[in-house]
């Protein structure tokens, strides 16, 4: 599947933190006939510079951005505009999705072309809650969301049961994508569906879901989806403070997921995943049941995507079925690939780079941006086989060689 010879945790860590491989721990005491072998110890979660970078990011998200956006006045050069906050917030959601994709694709070698579905499901769960929060302020002054009134529905359909409660609905944000992924994954992995066959059925799944959600009868507002949100936990949504809160939450979730993912892939669990990617049958003959491993990471990944979607919806203000279109799922994979697969920082970088570029190009070259974006994909694959992170890593390694 992958051609990254980059799975050693040490080297991965080193490059991510931009430092040297930590010197192996002191050799263990002599062992009878075994003699001395320098066994690599368990790698730390992050190296010291890694932690430093992490805290800088944390600070930027939690303190710097709010101050620059809310406190620094509009005219100032340092002011962070609402628009920039919106763009960054959206991209951070994408980054979470890309991170989730990397766990399943980069590390386990399972390319999902259906992650857009989990993202959208999380978004829809959040959207349902937000729709209910509109309350009587809608066009029709009804307890029911506008589109239901308009379709002559007299009461909430069953799947809206929990939509009134923030807590329950937030549980659904994680549980629904998780459950769907679990059931789907259980059957797929049990049947040993692999490679493109898996990719294609995930694509079929999201495509089918998209068509389903486009239907008005499905009860999710059809093509128009959910828009015009007014409040979240009874606080107006369209205030700078609320927007900043959402932004900071997204940032924290992203950083939290990043640490979680680090911990996962650094553990033996993570190495079993990579082993599954390389030689699944050998994993089985070593006594591991790949089904459970794949199912676990697949479900976790779907749940992360769900959370990303839930954070995304109140920030962009709309969720509609196009989020489930196959192209969107492919795009998630592309973020991971451009940034660098099987490196956790890669997908985050990729998401920022690709969607950032898209945002920027569509404004600056509205007619030509597809050329740039297309060329970018081609060039990255041709010249940066390990993504942007791979390039950085190579440059760093070269620098080190020269220094040495």
């Amino acid at each position, binding site marked *: 599947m992958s051609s990254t010879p980059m799975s050693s945790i040490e080297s991965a860590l080193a490059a991510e933190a931009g430092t040297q491989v930590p010197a192996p721990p002191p050799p263990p005491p002599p062992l009878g006939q075994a003699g001395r072998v320098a066994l690599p110890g368990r790698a730390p979660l992050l190296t010291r510079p890694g932690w430093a970078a992490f805290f800088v990011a944390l600070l930027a998200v939690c303190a710097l951005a709010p101050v620059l956006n809310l406190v620094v006045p509009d005219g100032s050069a340092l002011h962070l505009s609402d628009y920039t906050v*919106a763009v960054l917030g959206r991209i951070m959601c994408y980054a979470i999705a890309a991170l989730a994709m990397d766990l399943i694709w980069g590390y386990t070698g399972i390319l999902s072309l259906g992650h857009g579905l989990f993202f959208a499901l999380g978004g829809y769960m959040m959207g349902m809650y937000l729709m209910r929060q509109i309350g009587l302020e809608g066009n029709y002054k009804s307890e029911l969301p506008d589109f239901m009134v308009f379709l002559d529905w007299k009461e909430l359909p069953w799947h809206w049961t929990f939509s009134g409660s923030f807590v329950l609905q937030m549980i659904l944000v994680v549980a629904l994508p998780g459950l769907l992924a679990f059931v789907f994954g259980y059957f797929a992995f049990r049947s040993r569906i692999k490679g493109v066959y898996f990719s294609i059925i995930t694509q079929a799944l999201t495509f089918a879901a998209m068509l389903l959600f*486009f239907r008005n009868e499905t009860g999710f507002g*059809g093509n128009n989806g959910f828009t015009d949100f007014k409040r979240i936990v009874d606080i107006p949504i369209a205030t700078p403070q609320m927007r900043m809160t959402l932004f900071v939450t997204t940032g924290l979730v992203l950083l939290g997921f990043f640490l979680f993912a680090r911990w996962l892939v650094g553990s033996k669990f993570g190495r079993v995943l990579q082993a599954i990617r390389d030689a699944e049958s050998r994993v089985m003959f070593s006594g591991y049941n790949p089904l459970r491993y794949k199912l676990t990471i697949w479900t976790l990944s779907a749940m992360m995507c769900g959370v990303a979607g839930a954070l995304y919806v109140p920030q*962009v203000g709309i969720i509609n079925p196009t989020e489930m279109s196959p192209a969107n799922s492919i795009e998630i994979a592309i973020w991971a690939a451009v940034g660098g697969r099987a490196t956790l920082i890669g997908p985050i970088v990729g998401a920022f780079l690709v969607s950032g570029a898209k945002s920027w190009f569509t404004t600056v070259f509205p007619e030509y941006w597809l050329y740039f974006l297309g060329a970018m994909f081609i060039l990255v694959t041709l010249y940066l086989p390990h993504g942007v992170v791979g390039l950085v890593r190579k440059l760093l390694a070269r620098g080190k060689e020269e220094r040495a």
Partner: protein
Amino acid sequence: QDTIKVGVLHALSGTMAISETALKDMALMTIEDINAKGGVMGKKLEPVVIDTASNWPLAAEKAKQLIGQDKVAVTFGCWTSVCRKSVLPVYEENNALLYYPVQYEGEELSKNVFYTGAAPNQQAIPAVEYLMGKEGGSAKRWVLLGTDYVYPRTANKIVRAFLKSKGVADADIMETYTPFGHSDYQTIVADIKKFSQGGKTAVVSTINGDSNIPFYKELGNAGLSAKNVPVVAFSVGEEELRGLDPKPLAGHLASWNYFMSVKNPTNTAWIKQWGDYAKAKKLPGQSTKPLTNDPMEATYVGIHMWKQAVEKAKSTDADKVIAAMAGQTFNAPSGFTLTMDAKNHHLHKPVLIGEIRPDGQFNVVWRTKAPVKAQPWSPFIEGNDKKKDEPEKK
């Protein structure tokens, strides 16, 4: 500051680019024309063109950018309802202005939006009435065919309610939907053919975008001619016909507020202006065969009305412009003088029914005597009788 920035927010790539590109160009032409004639209040207009890439969250973000970063005075844009719905909160929140140029399902009225396209009563109902009448062939049975999304569903709901009020039984209405991008209409056309054996049948088509061509090609294949089973479409205009050989379609109908074939001096001048512009700018497709259509007219009218309102208000401030918009009139290429309703932000528009000609243009076979007032809240939908015909005060 000697320029006024205006936003042009359309999809120039992705699925909607097919329709929206022409609107962008029309907006640019109109702006250029206004500038050439001295601008607005002596200031030149500076268009800010942005591609929504047919991606609706992106559209909302771009709207933020137009309003927040570029500080445009007004935005002309969107085609799909979902695009409008996604940017609407942004406009309301910032109290900015959006001019929306496409026919839509109604059921919405925002203080910050001016709807220059048709509401259902300015397009769907007259067309159905026409087909019911002797002129239209006295249709007794109805096929309501659409792409599965909100506009067709709503339009069909209204049409169904209207048909019922005219005494058409449910058994005489067949309602079918196809997924987005559907390209194989064999089964549906066969079904229509079968259905049409039960009595004089007409088809009301709200098929969207690209699916029209396969649909009409299949109709032609199946030998269902307009004489037997006329199809009236609400989304097929001159641009859509560009993509297919119209000969087999001759006689099928469309209902709009404007047709390129309308004969009057305003229209002739406008078409010429557009043709010259397309040639000068080498617009792909348009430069060899310039076409105008209803949404383009609505774009053109919208920009001019905004200009007039600004000049009346002597300011680009949204509230002042909104106030000044009420009752604005404009001599439109359709040959009618269009009036902005005093309250409901919709234009009073004429309804024209045209039959497709073998050259891809329309023969206007029926038209309203005078512009019709829009009913954004359709009376055929329950509860709408209580709705006010003006935006909520917030």
